[in-house]
């Protein structure tokens, strides 16, 4: 066959085209393979999800959660409907915690810093354990274990480990609750925080505590609030200088001058007493509890002191006393003053006046722990104790510090110079999930398992009025990275690591401790799980997320308000230079809390419920005051205290008392992973070391600052105002688009005018003409 050059090239081209077509249409080899995996755990069954009940004690006050697991991966966190505290409800913080498990910045393996100024280098767990033992070898009598406030077995193990080395276990909470615990103990005689029967109350009077947003179990509180508003609608009075989620939900919002909440409570009490709204026996019991009496709390004096009008004080008092059952409680910023113990004591004493102690719709005491030696209550060490401890660190008296679950460098004010104190400790061992600011000063860094991967127990505080032990179990195994190149993190549990380093006298593993405790509970023969054997009981408790015994309650014994300092004190701003002196009101971020969830992008992007802002730090300032000072939204403000300065974006709005600025906590991390690093400002850093006179707790709402425009502007990242507000009425078009007109043009040009025609407004005005 003869082929000329042209035919040869044509045939070659067709052959090549045919080869490409056949190859493209053929079946890839991998599609003809069905793989038998080596093992098929139950989670790997395709399309079937498993829901495991567990707890997430670092992020809630003991709520029970269910984690949805598919093919071995945790996908969703919901509330546990069986759990007596949150009863199936959840908050945005639950979901955000999921992103700790899969965080791209999770610490993958142990790391060591060979010298204080050196870099962290990867090491094996064997090397890490050897270094850990070396750090403990000289630490007897010079060891401090620093954690977040821990209830349940983890708290017990941390305390016993510290005791084994004759050391200290100190908890740190940037917004410590010691004042609250002290006031509850003094007034109501309770060791645990009480529960508030909001669901059955007809009037709730709360001070400072944003209990629908961030205080206590806000998910559980939300359930109670729903019941409170159902049937006979309850009346909510909330006192707080800024409009929190709770204040926004209130029927009557009182915005007192920060630190005068106790005076406001006693002003309300005096109205009740003077108008004879409650029985004389209750008045007598109340007056016995408030040793200073009510002589200084006449209506006009209290109105002047608190900045709340006499009418509103009277209205609150009458509602509180006449529409019973009523309950009063406080916390948060109300206790974060130099007179915090007085404030909260006066607030809780109101319950005595209306007979709300240990009654339906009032305050219910919580019993102690169901498990011997396992704490049911925890609070941070006082700021005074921390200052003393840091002095020991600086003096070189502490050889080894073990830190877990709290970012002390981010959480402590500049005034205590925590960084410098850490540099004086020879061995700083930090556990964590994502690199935080404290780890910059760690000599040994150990990847810690999340609550999805570790064993534990969590005892809710406040509980529901009876004994509860929540269980935490591993719901996923070690997680493979998305590219299947290895584990996301070769992490170990904090408790298990401490037990491995211990003398073994208080347990070998967290799993055995938890199962042992459940076995002991089986021995009591009571509670929510009934089983014929300890192992069946353990499985039953783990399946339900814990054990609770409604028959194990407690009662109160009313005492006295520890009145030490009635009037609040604040830090000075006189020598700081130019600017407007204002009260600084830090508040918990609704999604990131105090910053512990800042590494989660879901937490970062969740809009604040009041301002709708996210991914940033903003300054809430009263609109009229902002107008007077020439401050508009997006102005960069310089906030200065005697402890330091930060910059944040102005957000003027009407929901804050003039003279007060509100700044959310949670941002301003030097580390914290890619989503948190160098974002926003850390309001905790500029707090001044004012303390509660009784407990020595940090008075974190007693800082006064100077506010000044920095001369720059940035857009506040928020949802509010991005879409123009418009009325929506049946039969009224939302937008009328003309021929050849884009929706954008139509919106800009005409929609308000068309709506005016339909709504009966001025029909002649038409911008398009």
């Amino acid at each position, binding site marked *: 066959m003869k082929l000329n050059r042209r035919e040869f090239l044509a045939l070659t081209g067709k052959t090549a085209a045919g080869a490409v077509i056949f190859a493209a249409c053929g079946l890839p080899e991998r599609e003809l393979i*069905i793989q038998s995996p080596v093992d098929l755990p139950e989670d790997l069954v*395709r399309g079937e999800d498993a829901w495991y009940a567990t707890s997430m004690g670092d992020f809630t006050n003991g709520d029970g959660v269910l984690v949805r697991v598919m093919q071995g991966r945790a996908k969703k966190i919901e509330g546990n409907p069986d759990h007596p505290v949150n009863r199936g409800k959840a908050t945005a913080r639950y979901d955000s915690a999921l992103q700790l498990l899969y965080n791209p910045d999770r610490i993958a393996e142990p790391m060591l810093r060979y010298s204080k100024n050196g870099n962290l280098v990867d090491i094996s767990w064997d090397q890490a354990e050897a270094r850990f033992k070396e750090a403990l070898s000289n630490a007897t009598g010079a060891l401090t274990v620093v954690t977040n406030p821990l209830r349940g077995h983890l708290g017990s193990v941390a305390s016993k480990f510290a005791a084994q080395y004759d050391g200290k276990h100190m908890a740190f909470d940037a917004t410590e609750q010691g004042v609250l615990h002290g006031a509850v103990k003094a007034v109501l005689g309770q060791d645990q925080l009480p529960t508030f029967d909001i669901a059955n109350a007809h009037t709730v009077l709360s001070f400072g505590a944003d209990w629908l947003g961030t205080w206590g179990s806000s998910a559980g509180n939300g359930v109670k609030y729903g019941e409170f508003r159902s049937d006979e609608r309850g009346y909510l009075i909330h006192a707080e200088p800024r409009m929190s989620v709770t204040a926004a939900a209130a029927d009557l919002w009182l915005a007192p001058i920060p630190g005068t909440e106790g005076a406001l409570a006693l002003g309300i009490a005096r109205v009740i007493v003077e108008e004879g709204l409650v029985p004389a026996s209750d008045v007598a019991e109340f007056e016995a509890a408030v040793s200073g009496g009510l002589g200084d709390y006449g209506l006009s004096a209290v109105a002047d002191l608190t900045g709340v009008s006499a009418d509103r004080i009277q209205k609150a008092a009458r509602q509180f006393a006449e529409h019973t059952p009523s309950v009063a409680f406080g916390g948060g910023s109300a206790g974060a003053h130099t007179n915090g113990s007085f404030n909260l004591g006066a607030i809780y004493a109101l319950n005595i006046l209306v007979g709300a102690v240990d009654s339906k719709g009032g305050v219910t005491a919580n019993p102690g722990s169901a498990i011997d030696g396992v704490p049911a209550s925890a609070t941070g060490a006082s700021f005074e104790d921390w200052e003393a401890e840091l002095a020991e660190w600086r003096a070189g008296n502490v050889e080894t510090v073990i830190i877990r679950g709290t970012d002390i460098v981010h959480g402590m004010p500049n005034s205590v110079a925590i960084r410098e104190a850490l540099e004086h400790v020879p061995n700083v061992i930090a556990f964590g999930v994502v690199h935080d600011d404290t780890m910059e000063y760690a000599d040994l860094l150990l990847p810690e398992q999340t609550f999805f991967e570790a064993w534990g127990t969590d005892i809710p505080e406040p509980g529901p009025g009876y004994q509860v032990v929540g269980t935490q179990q591993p719901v996923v195994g070690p997680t493979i990275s998305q590219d299947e190149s290895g584990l996301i993190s070769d992490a170990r549990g904090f408790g298990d690591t401490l037990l491995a380093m211990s003398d073994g006298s208080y347990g070998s593993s967290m799993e055995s401790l938890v199962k042992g405790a459940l076995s002991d509970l089986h021995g009591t023969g009571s509670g929510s799980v009934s089983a014929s054997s300890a192992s069946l009981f353990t499985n039953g408790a783990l399946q339900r997320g814990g054990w609770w015994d409604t028959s194990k309650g407690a009662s109160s014994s009313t005492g006295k308000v520890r009145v030490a300092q009635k009037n609040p004190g604040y830090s000075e701003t006189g020598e700081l230079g130019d600017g407007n002196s204002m009260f600084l009101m830090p508040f918990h971020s609704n999604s990131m809390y105090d910053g512990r969830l800042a590494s989660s992008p879901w937490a970062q992007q969740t809009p604040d419920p009041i301002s709708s802002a996210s991914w940033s730090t903003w300054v809430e300032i009263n609109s009229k005051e902002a107008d007077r000072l020439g401050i508009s939204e997006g102005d960069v403000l310089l906030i200065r205290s005697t402890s330091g300065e930060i910059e944040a974006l102005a957000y003027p709005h009407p929901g804050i008392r003039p003279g007060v600025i509100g700044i959310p906590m949670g941002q301003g991390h030097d580390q914290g992973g890619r989503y948190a690093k160098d974002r926003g400002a850390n309001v905790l850093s500029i707090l001044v070391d004012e303390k509660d006179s009784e407990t020595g707790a940090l008075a974190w709402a007693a800082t006064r600052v100077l506010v000044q425009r920095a001369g720059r502007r940035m857009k506040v990242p928020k949802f509010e105002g991005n879409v123009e507000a418009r009325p929506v009425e049946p039969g009224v078009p939302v937008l009328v688009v003309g021929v050849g007109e884009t929706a954008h043009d139509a919106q800009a040009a005409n929609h308000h005018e068309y709506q005016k025609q339909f709504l009966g407004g001025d029909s002649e005005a038409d911008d398009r003409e």
Partner: protein
Amino acid sequence: MLVPVLAMGGLGVMAVMGVVAAFVITGWIGQPVPVLGFEQTFDQPIDFPHTVHASLLPLDRVAADGQLMDGLGLDCTFCHRTVTTQGNAGVPPVGFCATCHQVIGAADNVQLSILRDAADIIGDDGPSPINWKRVHRLPDHVRFVHEPHIRYLTQNPSAVKGTTDGVKEGAAGVCSTCHGNVAAMQQVEQVESLKMGQCVDCHRDNGAPTDCVACHQ
């Protein structure tokens, strides 16, 4: 799009015909039927005999003790555990096979050695999955879910075609409708065309939906 190609004359016509032919031919290769003589079975990584496991009948096979073997008569769902609940029938994990075969079967059985090695019972190269070759495969644009088919046929035995070694009851008694008598196959092969025509015929006969989206994604 075809018009400018066809306008090129004979070369264009040839090109279009070539593309169509390629499409048809590869379609058959992807889902072959016996008439064209393509392979309906594959050699598998392990010579797994369905006869030994699924059959109820005496086998022409000698056991380790020299006796002729009887089939075990395992229900299909014993290994294909998700067939009654999910889209995928499921192949058992290696560890599942090893539950029996770490002790059952001669120690020097070559085929079982492959399995035991994969399950890390013998050898020192760690556990490894087994890549079986798929015999029954539907095109990507077909969404087939086993569960409703097994349920319907179990409830309506009259619609079942063929038998699995005489079994016509329960979930295992209905598989033969599409897969033939697998219990009698030393090596599994495809015996039904599993083409759209067969699906539509069966759906029509049994009052099942025949609209496109019932099967096509």
